[in-house]
């Protein structure tokens, strides 16, 4: 009976019930979707990473391409090799990768066992791939072996994997930031649920008070309310979870494949659905408890306190003290969390203060300001949620744009030229050089030699990677440097060096720094003339000109980067390969078509970025929906006073304008409040998390054009809410509200 009375509120306001359920469901969907997406991304990345770091190709010593017979022989020798058959396709996928699921245990470094499943495209069973290959599509079979596995039998040898493009830490960093984003999403949605709930509760206070006067104990009442909330949460969590999974599936349809493509690795379907569900459930329980806490304390709907702004300021300060000098990720995350919490606590009061009217304002403007103050108080939680959500969206946009720019630039640098050819083991460069110089169809080319060098620093000798190339090549000179002396390329050609950002940071090197470089036991003091970005791996690297390599230098890996002449003058790729094969007198060459890889990588990353953006937009959408719902409820509760404006002679249009102006000011205020949050978050993501985690930074960029887009969106929302609040038959106020002490200011 009591339950019926408690629930009777929703009989009169079914929309409120629907709204609460909807917000619970949507929030769950967001959690489970984000959980699933980030989890998926992380798993595939981990799998990809372990394989990249520990994977080598097995090739035949006689240079002939490997076949299925090689595979069988190597397996019969007890080697854990697995086949990888890449076949071009005509469709948009570009290629499929044939794998043998029965052999894939080896890809994880496990010699035995199976229980392995994969994510579908681009992976197919190797028989299917072989069938395509047989029907005339170009195909490459590779055999991979785990690093450190037993020595190879006679007739085969190991080789690095030139086909793989390691984006290594760039992707890691992206994933880390995706995690941080996921955390924010949870925070924001928790705020939203709570705000919708407490607002609804505030509206029921009268009827609940009535029940109390009829003799229902407060304790009993709260238990009923808690029960009601839990039932609603339970009803929301399952469809929400499924919705989120569906969403993740749709969004990740390309995502899993994208990473798989990029890393040429399997994607483990981790069977985490149960964990994901449990995590979602636990989060929901926590949020419900958070809402319930107020119920039990009996101060539902009144969460503002004079101490909040002070506490907020203290938190922000504490957070900054943590973030700025932070050396560990945990500290950065913790500090950022404190700053966000502080911002959340301060914002409503700060807005109230900023919007406080001056005594000389025109009275109607003064009225708007005063109403704004009321809104800021009543909608404190959804306001903060929307502020954080918008801040997140701004940060994610900046981050993604930055990543995009960086990634493309990096790709351009790394994939300069049209073709990348590996110099066969034991063959000198000279014959190829002669042949290339004789070809009109070759626009330009340069060699890249990789090896090791010693770095004499403070008396100790440190080993770093060495990259040597022809630094007069225009392809190299297109590189943009992070920092440099005035004529870096000339200095480089004269014998000085460039270092990558990792090395520069680690050894505190700047353009102009001196260091002792030891190559092939020959020591020489050189000047650092520039620093270049190098996102692929953690190792420090020194770049020198080939002309300054000492005679005894032995390179670990040699390749040629070749730019073909455009148009009819250019040689075809197959002619080029044939020419080089003839020059070196070898049967087959490892050739990488940079354009294909470039296209593939770009497509993949675009997809990934689109996904990340969609997560942030979903968050914004949820926050927006919550704000619309709560805003509408709050504005409806002000209907009498809006009616008074009519009674005092404002025309319908004037009233609508006034109210829309009110909502617009409110939204713009949130937008303004979101900007510093967004900038701070961007800064933390780009300038704190990356250096701490990886040793390099991304360029920090802000995008005011995007802020304006967001502002437009907010403005649109304001018009909608304003329209809703000022429409309907509110000209003749029929029911005056009760005045609540202290609720209006």
């Amino acid at each position, binding site marked *: 009976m009591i339950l019926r009375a408690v629930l009777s509120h929703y009989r009169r306001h079914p929309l409120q019930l629907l709204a609460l359920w909807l917000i619970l469901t949507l929030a769950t969907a967001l959690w489970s979707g984000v959980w699933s997406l980030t989890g998926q991304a992380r798993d595939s990345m981990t799998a990809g990473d372990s394989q990249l770091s520990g994977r080598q190709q097995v090739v035949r010593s006689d240079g002939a391409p490997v076949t299925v017979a090689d595979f069988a022989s190597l397996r019969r020798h007890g080697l854990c090799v697995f086949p990888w058959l890449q076949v071009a396709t005509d469709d948009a996928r570009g290629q499929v990768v044939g794998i043998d699921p029965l052999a894939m245990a080896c890809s994880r470094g496990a010699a035995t066992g199976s229980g392995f499943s994969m994510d579908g495209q681009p992976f197919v069973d190797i028989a299917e791939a072989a069938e395509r290959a047989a029907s005339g599509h170009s195909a490459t079979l590779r055999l991979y072996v785990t690093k450190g596995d037993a020595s190879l039998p006679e007739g085969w040898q190991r080789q690095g994997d030139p086909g793989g493009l390691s984006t290594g830490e760039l992707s890691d960093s992206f994933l880390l930031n995706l995690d941080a984003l996921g955390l924010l999403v949870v925070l924001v949605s928790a705020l939203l649920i709570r705000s919708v709930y407490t607002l609804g509760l505030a509206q029921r206070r009268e009827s609940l008070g009535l029940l109390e006067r009829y003799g229902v104990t407060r304790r009993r009442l709260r238990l009923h309310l808690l029960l009601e909330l839990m039932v609603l949460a339970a009803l929301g969590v399952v469809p929400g979870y499924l919705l989120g999974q569906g969403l993740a599936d749709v969004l990740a349809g390309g995502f899993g494949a994208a990473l798989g493509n990029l890393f040429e690795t399997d994607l483990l379907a981790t069977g985490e659905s149960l964990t994901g569900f449990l995590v979602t459930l636990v989060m929901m329980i926590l949020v419900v408890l958070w809402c319930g806490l107020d119920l039990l304390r009996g101060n539902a709907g009144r969460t503002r306190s004079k101490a909040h702004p002070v506490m907020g300021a203290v938190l922000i300060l504490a957070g900054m003290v943590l973030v700025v000098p932070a050396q560990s990720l945990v500290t950065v995350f913790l500090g950022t969390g404190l700053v966000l919490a502080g911002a959340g606590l301060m914002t409503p009061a700060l807005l109230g203060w900023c919007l406080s009217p001056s005594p000389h304002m025109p009275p109607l403007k003064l009225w708007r300001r005063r109403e704004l103050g009321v809104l800021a108080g009543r909608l404190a939680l959804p306001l903060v949620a929307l502020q954080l959500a918008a801040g997140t969206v701004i940060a994610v946009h900046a981050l993604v744009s930055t990543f995009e720019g960086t990634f493309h630039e990096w790709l351009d640098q790394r994939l300069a030229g049209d073709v990348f050819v590996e110099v066969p083991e034991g063959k000198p460069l000279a014959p190829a050089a002669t042949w290339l110089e004789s070809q009109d169809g070759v626009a330009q080319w340069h060699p890249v030699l990789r090896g090791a060098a010693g770095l004499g620093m403070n008396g100790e000798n440190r080993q770093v990677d060495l990259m040597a190339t022809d630094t007069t090549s225009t392809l190299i000179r297109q590189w943009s440097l992070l920092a440099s002396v005035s004529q870096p390329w000339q200095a480089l050609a004269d014998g000085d060096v460039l270092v990558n950002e990792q090395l520069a940071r680690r050894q505190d090197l700047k353009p102009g720094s001196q260091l002792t470089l030891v190559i092939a036991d020959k020591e020489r003091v050189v000047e650092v003339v520039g620093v270049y970005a190098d996102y692929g791996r953690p190792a420090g690297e020194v770049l020198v000109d080939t002309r300054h390599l000492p005679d005894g230098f032995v390179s670990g890996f040699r390749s040629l980067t070749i730019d073909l002449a455009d148009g009819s003058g250019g040689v075809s790729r197959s002619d080029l390969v044939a020419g080089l094969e003839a020059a070196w007198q070898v049967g087959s060459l490892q050739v990488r078509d940079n354009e294909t890889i470039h296209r593939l990588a770009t497509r993949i990353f675009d997809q990934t970025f689109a996904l990340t953006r969609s997560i942030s937009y979903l968050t914004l959408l949820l926050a927006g929906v919550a704000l619309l719902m709560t805003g509408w409820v709050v504005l409806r509760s002000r209907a009498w006073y809006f009616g008074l404006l009519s009674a005092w002679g404002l025309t319908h249009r004037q009233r609508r304008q006034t109210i829309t102006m009110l909502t617009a000011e409110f939204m713009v205020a949130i937008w303004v409040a979101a900007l510093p949050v967004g900038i701070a978050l961007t800064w933390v993501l780009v300038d704190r998390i990356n250096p701490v985690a990886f040793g390099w930074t991304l360029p920090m960029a802000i995008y005011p054009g995007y802020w304006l887009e967001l502002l437009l969106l907010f403005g649109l929302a304001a018009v909608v809410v304003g329209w809703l609040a000022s429409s309907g038959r509110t000209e003749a106020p029929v029911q*005056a509200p009760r005045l609540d002490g202290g609720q*209006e200011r």
Partner: protein
Amino acid sequence: MVTSVNVSGLSKSYNTGSGAVPVFLDLSFQLAAGESLALTGPSGSGKSTLLNILCGVEGVDDGSMQVLGRDGATLTADQWAGLRRRRVGVVFQDSNLMPAMTLEENVKLRADLAGRSFGPVRDWLARLGLAGLEQRYPDQVSGGQRQRAALAMVFAMGPDLVLADEPTGSLDRHTARDVADALFHWQRTQGCGLILATHDLALAERCDRRLDLAEGGQG
């Protein structure tokens, strides 16, 4: 005699699910400038509806009316709003004030809308016994003080006609009399028309005339 309000043959009914329910039929009365009229009758007799009609918030089914010399049939919604803004003051039983604004700010707002200067605002408040309470918010003063502030707002706009709907309905007898005193004193000195809907017969007695809607609306 200059007429403030002239109503003739006014009919109004509400549509409910089971058909039209008449509120009043063929109602006619006149109000001279400076005259006060009490609308009495039980709940549901149409007092509030009539006030709404007289300030243009609700329409009528039949009949004609003139308010402050304007023909009600020809007035647009915006013209009605203009009348309410400058010439017709409305007082409700409660919640006449914007809750987020001080008493003074409320009065200023009303005066400003009516195009009056803010100057005498404090005077009006002081004259209504609200001196020293100017910076209080509506929920920080008593119900009687709120109603007096509502009167101050009406006085500040300087209307030609005041429509008051149970202006003392939620006050105790003593306070009610104080508020009524202020209202009638002002109305008489300003020579403005007043239509006042009330249950309170004593209050109705203080008006120049009385129109009992329960008796069929014959004034």
